[in-house]
């Protein structure tokens, strides 16, 4: 794209004129209508001699009616030296000015920024120049802004702000201009409607903040000027008529919704400009206001506004590194402390009063217009209804209906509790807390690195405002939608829109989702949702297809992010991604000898390594004994995982049956893949062949893992076959494109008949296979897995929760395969028993290590019960704070029923519930070491003959890693969490000696103390790690999705 700058030299210069400051007026316009002409006429009519005008077209649509902008400028700026530039894409008001000034060389002393819907009244410029030149300290001057329609109505006479950057006009609504504000005053800021700025100051401030795009950038510029020691003034003798086209709905903007941009930019402005200590104090206030606003919007049933709030906050979070860097630069220039600016700010109460008054008027007006509004909406609905006809709409409705029927179990049933697809914990922030906690309250408890998966999953309950059931549904739906979008994007450079939709649908409704939902394989679903995006970037890195303005670094960052998200759930996905990259590169090299595909493989490898780094320190534990990958590939456990591949192999992958999928639609996939190769032309055929190589390689890997020739590096065939499924989805898109775009270009012949036949057969297989599956609702968590239904689990959780509320925290032991995962996975290792809290297994219980001494002691206790060597299992389990046993009915049930200290409290067809009468508290002080612990420690059961001392003092749980008691007695304090030297106890601040309690943690409590605290403290290393992880992810997100003005300029230059 080229941009031409034209100056019409129509001004005669004289010596007198050289002595007054020169002004360059910059008018930024976007999709302007007649008002631009008016604005230019207003400029042209100024008597000020040293005025040049630069019209900056911020990528207006070329299709707009009317003469070209250049011609308008030429016609109405005849008396001025003028220029015209056009940005390659919309950069926003500030961004467009920055861009234009980087393209145009100007020696103007002053810059006049003017909106294209603002008319400068004759003589105004001289007055503004006079004001700015009157004092050296004045850097920015604004005029009095009045209404376009009625110039007697005041719109703005300088602006004030409160501490949080909320603007305040200080004018009544529709206030008449009677000269009451005609006094040149210093103000906090003037708006960008019309603003005269010293050029040198503007340069020293580094111009506008282009990242803001629109809104609040004027406040930011003035604030920065003030910090640098300059003054901002309003000159009421100068007047501008302002149309306010956006506010009055007369124009559109690419930067909508306005509230989102206003909120986001205001927070950025505050973060950048408020001084160090104050910003820390203001943030909590800001967050509280944010929350209150969200509550208000929830009450007003405006979810869109809540989304805007979240988006604005999220944007600032992602942009934080850049914002902080800007902040550092601005604060270095600070010459004026914030307290000296306070005279120009207003109190919050003033602003709130004004806000309430304004809103009250709005509501009144809104009620008055209610009837009109209803009528208008009715008409709009009628018009929309008249448009909703024809087969596309019918197909859309049918599709939505079919999806609702197919996914009815997910949508309407209680939260699933199958495999890794577990309910969310009740508290909205529970997963974030689990992520940040130094002690994982999973199973018997364990220390370890933070789990990135928890942080990723933790966003969903926040989005549902803590509704745990809805969060799980949202998670599944989001993964499905992401899979659709990803697969559609995978082939978007090669195919038309219907083909993209076909690819998306084939993948979203395909084998990974089908099998993943049924088996509760959350890892496979996340991997499946991320994989198409990663493959797309790999395809670009390797050079198969590259869109215009493609950026290698951004692709690397995206691969890193996608692979990190995948590997947070499926560590072996990194290996699969690497294999895919190698296959794509090899195919490209083979087909095009000159291609530099190796560079792409290297870039992908770097990206995958960054992905691994993003998961540190957890990813460092993958290879240690009991770690995620070690468990898959070594010891006694690898066979358990490999056995899950039974029945899978090259043939099943090739025929679309791995992951598990209905036979007919599965068979349609290779058929469509053949059509893509046979009919496709050029790059489409090449891409199809590349996808086939990915399928072949993946099929080989699955076959090798199934046979045991290769130790499995992923937990199940569902995970292993994700690359093949993505490739098949790509082939479906390419096949549809080949059918629609390539087949008509070939001569009529046998190929047409074969393709038509093949396509018809594929469609028949898909319809006849998917139809019954949709009707049956086969996308049901746990379907045909032999696992206990979610209803029953929900029922049990209710019982346990009620007991927990009455009796306090304890653990539950779930016995039987009905509760376990249909397929073992990294997040949920195979076991026919599990330990949970009173709410049953929830997502924060994933990633239990299931190794170590305490686990071995528990295993021995459970085995003793199962093998019938003991019938006082209650005492043994009680030592682990297990109060309830939930028992799946089955052959081993009688052994559990024989336990004489387990009371049977509930009998159902599928399960039994037993209550343990003897159990240790989670944390308590005993006169002596409880006999239950001694029995486990020594194996001498006769020790249990003597009755244990009841816990005299029970410590209160503050968090999963902290317990306190406000009274104490001499004895032994026991916390029934896995032994870890990291646990520390203090009595009135004095550290306590450890006592050997076997699997748990014990401390000797001396006489005379009062306040007991038992804690697993958070180390400095962990805090540093948390910060590093957050910073790493923020940087990666910024690199993957952020767009800098420099990048935009580079794009244009290219």
């Amino acid at each position, binding site marked *: 794209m080229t941009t031409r700058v034209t100056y019409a030299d129509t001004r005669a210069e004289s010596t007198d004129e050289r002595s007054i400051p020169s002004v360059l007026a910059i008018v930024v316009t976007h999709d302007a209508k007649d008002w631009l002409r008016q604005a230019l006429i207003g400029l042209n009519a100024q008597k000020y001699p040293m005025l040049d005008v630069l019209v900056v077209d911020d990528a207006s649509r070329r299709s707009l009616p009317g003469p070209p902008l250049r011609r308008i400028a030429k016609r109405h700026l005849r008396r001025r030296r003028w220029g015209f530039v056009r940005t390659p894409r919309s950069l926003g008001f500030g961004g467009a000015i920055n861009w234009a000034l980087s393209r145009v060389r100007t020696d103007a002393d002053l810059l006049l920024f003017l909106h294209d819907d603002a008319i400068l009244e004759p003589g105004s410029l001289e007055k503004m120049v006079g004001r700015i030149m009157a004092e050296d300290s004045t850097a920015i001057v604004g005029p009095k802004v009045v209404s376009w329609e009625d110039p007697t109505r005041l719109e703005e006479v300088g602006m004030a702000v409160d501490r949080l950057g909320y603007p305040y006009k200080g004018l009544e609504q529709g206030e008449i201009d009677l000269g009451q504000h005609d006094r040149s005053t210093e103000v906090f800021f003037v708006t960008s409607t019309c603003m005269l700025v010293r050029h040198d100051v503007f340069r020293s401030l580094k111009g506008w903040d282009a990242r803001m795009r629109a809104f609040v950038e004027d406040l930011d510029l003035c604030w920065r000027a003030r910090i640098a020691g300059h003054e901002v003034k309003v000159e009421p003798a100068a007047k501008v008529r302002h149309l306010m086209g956006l506010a009055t709905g007369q124009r559109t903007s690419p930067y909508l919704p306005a509230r989102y941009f206003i909120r986001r930019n205001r927070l950025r402005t505050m973060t950048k400009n408020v001084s160090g200590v104050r910003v820390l104090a203001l943030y909590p206030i800001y967050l509280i206001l944010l929350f209150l606003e969200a509550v208000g919007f929830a009450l007003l049933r405006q979810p869109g506004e809540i989304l805007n709030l979240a988006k604005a906050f999220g944007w600032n979070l992602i942009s934080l590194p850049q914002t902080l860097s800007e902040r550092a630069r601005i604060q270095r220039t600070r010459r004026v402390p914030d307290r000296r600016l306070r005279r120009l700010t207003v109190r919050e109460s003033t602003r709130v009063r004004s806000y309430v008054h304004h809103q009250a008027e709005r509501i009144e007006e809104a009620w008055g217009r209610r009837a009109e509004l209803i009528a208008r909406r009715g008409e709009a609905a009628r018009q929309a209804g008249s448009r909703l006809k024809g087969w596309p709409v019918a197909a859309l409705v049918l599709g939505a209906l079919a999806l609702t029927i197919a996914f009815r179990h997910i949508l309407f049933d209680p939260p699933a509790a199958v495999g890794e697809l577990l309910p969310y914990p009740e508290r909205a922030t529970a997963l974030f807390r689990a992520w940040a906690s130094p002690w994982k309250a999973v199973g018997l408890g364990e220390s370890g690195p933070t789990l990135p998966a928890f942080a990723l999953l933790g966003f969903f309950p926040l989005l549902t405002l803590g509704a745990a059931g809805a969060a799980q549904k949202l998670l599944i739906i989001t993964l499905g939608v992401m899979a659709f979008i990803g697969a559609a994007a995978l082939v978007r450079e090669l195919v038309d829109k219907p083909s993209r939709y076909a690819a998306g649908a084939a993948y979203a409704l395909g084998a990974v989702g089908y099998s993943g939902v049924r088996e509760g394989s959350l890892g496979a679903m996340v991997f499946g949702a991320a994989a198409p995006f990663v493959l797309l970037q790999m395809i670009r890195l390797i050079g198969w297809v590259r869109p215009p303005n493609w950026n290698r670094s951004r692709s690397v960052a995206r691969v890193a992010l996608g692979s990190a998200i995948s590997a947070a759930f499926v560590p072996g996905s990194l290996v699969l991604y690497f294999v895919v990259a190698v296959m794509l590169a090899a195919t490209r090299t*083979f087909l095009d000898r000159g291609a530099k595909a190796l560079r792409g493989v290297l870039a992908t490898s770097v990206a995958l390594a960054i992905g691994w780094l993003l998961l540190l320190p957890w990813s460092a534990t993958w290879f240690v004994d009991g770690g995620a990958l070690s468990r898959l590939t070594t010891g006694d456990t690898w066979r358990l995982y490999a056995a899950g591949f039974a029945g899978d192999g090259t043939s099943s992958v090739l025929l679309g049956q791995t992951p598990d999928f209905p036979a007919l639609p599965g068979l349609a996939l290779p058929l469509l893949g053949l059509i893509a190769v046979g009919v496709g032309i050029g790059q489409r055929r090449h891409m199809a062949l590349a996808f086939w190589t990915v399928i072949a390689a993946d099929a080989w890997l699955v076959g090798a893992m199934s046979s045991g020739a290769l130790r499995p590096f992923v937990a199940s065939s569902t995970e292993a076959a994700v690359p093949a499924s993505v490739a098949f989805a790509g082939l479906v898109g390419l096949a549809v494109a080949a059918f629609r775009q390539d087949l008509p270009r070939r001569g009529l012949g046998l190929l047409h008949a074969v393709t038509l036949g093949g396509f018809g057969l594929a469609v028949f297989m898909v319809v006849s296979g998917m139809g019954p599956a949709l009707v049956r609702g086969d996308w049901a968590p746990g379907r045909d897995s032999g696992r206990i239904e979610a209803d029953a689990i929900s029922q049990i959780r209710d019982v346990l929760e009620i007991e927990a509320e009455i009796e306090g925290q304890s653990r539950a032991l779930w016995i039987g395969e009905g509760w376990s995962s249909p397929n073992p996975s990294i997040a949920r290792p195979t076991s026919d028993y599990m330990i949970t809290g009173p709410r049953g297994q929830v997502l924060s219980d994933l990633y239990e290590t299931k190794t170590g001494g305490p686990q*071995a002691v528990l295993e021995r206790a459970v085995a003793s019960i199962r093998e019938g060597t003991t*019938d006082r299992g209650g005492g043994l389990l009680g030592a682990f704070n297990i109060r309830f046993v939930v028992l799946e009915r089955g052959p081993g049930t009688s052994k559990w029923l024989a336990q004489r200290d*387990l*009371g049977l409290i509930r009998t159902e067809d599928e399960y039994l519930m037993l209550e343990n009468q003897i159990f240790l508290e989670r944390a308590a002080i005993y006169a002596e070491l409880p006999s239950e612990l001694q029995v486990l420690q020594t*194996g001498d059961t*006769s020790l249990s003959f003597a009755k244990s001392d009841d816990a005299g003092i029970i410590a209160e749980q503050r968090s999963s890693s902290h317990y306190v008691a406000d009274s104490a007695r001499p004895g032994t304090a026991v916390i029934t969490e896995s032994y870890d030297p990291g646990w520390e106890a203090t009595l009135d601040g004095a550290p306590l000696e450890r006592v050997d309690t076997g699997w748990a943690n014990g401390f000797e409590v001396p006489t005379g103390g009062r306040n007991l605290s038992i804690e697993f403290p958070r180390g400095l290393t962990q805090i540093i790690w948390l910060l590093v992880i957050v910073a790493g992810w923020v940087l990666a997100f910024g690199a993957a999705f952020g767009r800098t003005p420099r990048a935009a300029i580079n794009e244009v230059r290219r």
Partner: protein
Amino acid sequence: MIEQRERMLAIMIAGALLLGIGFDLVTGSVKAPARLPVRGDRIVEQTSYCPPPIEAARSTAQVTVASLAEERVPFSFDPQAAGKLMHLESPGSRVMKAEATTAVTAYGSVMPSASTVQVYDPIVGAGAARCSRFASTRWYFPEGSSALGFDEKLILYNPFPDEAVARITFFTETGDLTRARLAEGVAVPAGTTKVLNINEFVQPQPLLSAVVEMSRGRVVAWRASLVDPKEQAAGVQFSLGAPNSATTWYLPAGSVEEGVEEKINILNPSRDEAIVSVSLVTAKETLQPPKLVEVAVPAASSRRLPLSEFVGRGGHNIGGAGVIVRSTNSVRFVAERTIWYDLDAVSGVSSEMGSAVAQPRWLVPPALLKPTTDTLVLLNPGPGRITVDVAILRDRAAPDVPAKFRGIVVGPGTRRRIEISGNAGMLFVRATGPVVAERAATSSRDAAAVMGIPSGS
């Protein structure tokens, strides 16, 4: 050129896929272990629940405990010796008096036990029943009667800390018989014993099998019957219920001869008709009476088979014979045997539940404490010859293994009677293959039989 490369690549992909399919065909899948081995010693602590005296004031009960461990076994005997930890020199056995339902807990070992009762009033008789290693949610009692002269009781013991509620259903030859008061549920408070006098609930029925099903909790259930019918000898029936149904039941003791009337009671609690065959196992061979090849037991009913009526005229004096009852249509059932003695030397009745398992090691408790005759009966249901050693376990002394108890051969499909002399306590039977062991004893006033207790491998 490009097209040629495309073709080559397509062929290479097809070749790779074909090779992969070939690899699939020649390789198998990895077999997963059923369950990962659990390392470390097991924690051993077991309790047996023993029945109380049938009539507290008019009968006595003794419990025989035994252990096969190699060291002294600490054990408790509640409630008689509450709070006291005793020790048994092991291997050995001890007889202890029981005044109530008893929980015998062995620490670090297993302590099989059984109870014998002597009744003095209103009839004089004796019976033996095993103690139970566990409580169950279901108990089956094929034998039973509420006819005149039968005072039948179900003894329910709830050793758990929560109240249990039992529903009792009766089965006759014509189907099930529900009695509202029992079917609605009988509460058995935590840690207590409840004795139900069946005659208070049911009209006289010659055959009245019972099923105890728990609607809440679980119990141990025994059946005791004080029998004094006009036509038959008086005595005591005493047996522990069967917690499960099965497709095969072994009853080693028994006899088909003049003066002895053996009846096999079969309870079919399922919803399908059971077809069973009843075989007689003698010292020489296994006999299959033609009339007992296919015996139909309708669904939810019970049936009594007097053997003498089925063995034919020539078989009336077969003599000692064990019984194997098998389901031929895989419907699970429960079998119990009753023997009526009307001989000069002994008169009385004994009943005992069959064993559903054959094992190489058994502990066999005494059927009577002071018997006139005491017999160990070994039944070999398998196809191979089995050699058996029998040891007599004693209190505070090493086990006694008389020479005649060593190397006892039991042929395939036969049974072997071994007379026990003296007042022997618990017997330890160790065989080279799976056998079933039962002990039968008689005294001048009654007879009793008790099935052995399988003691692992």
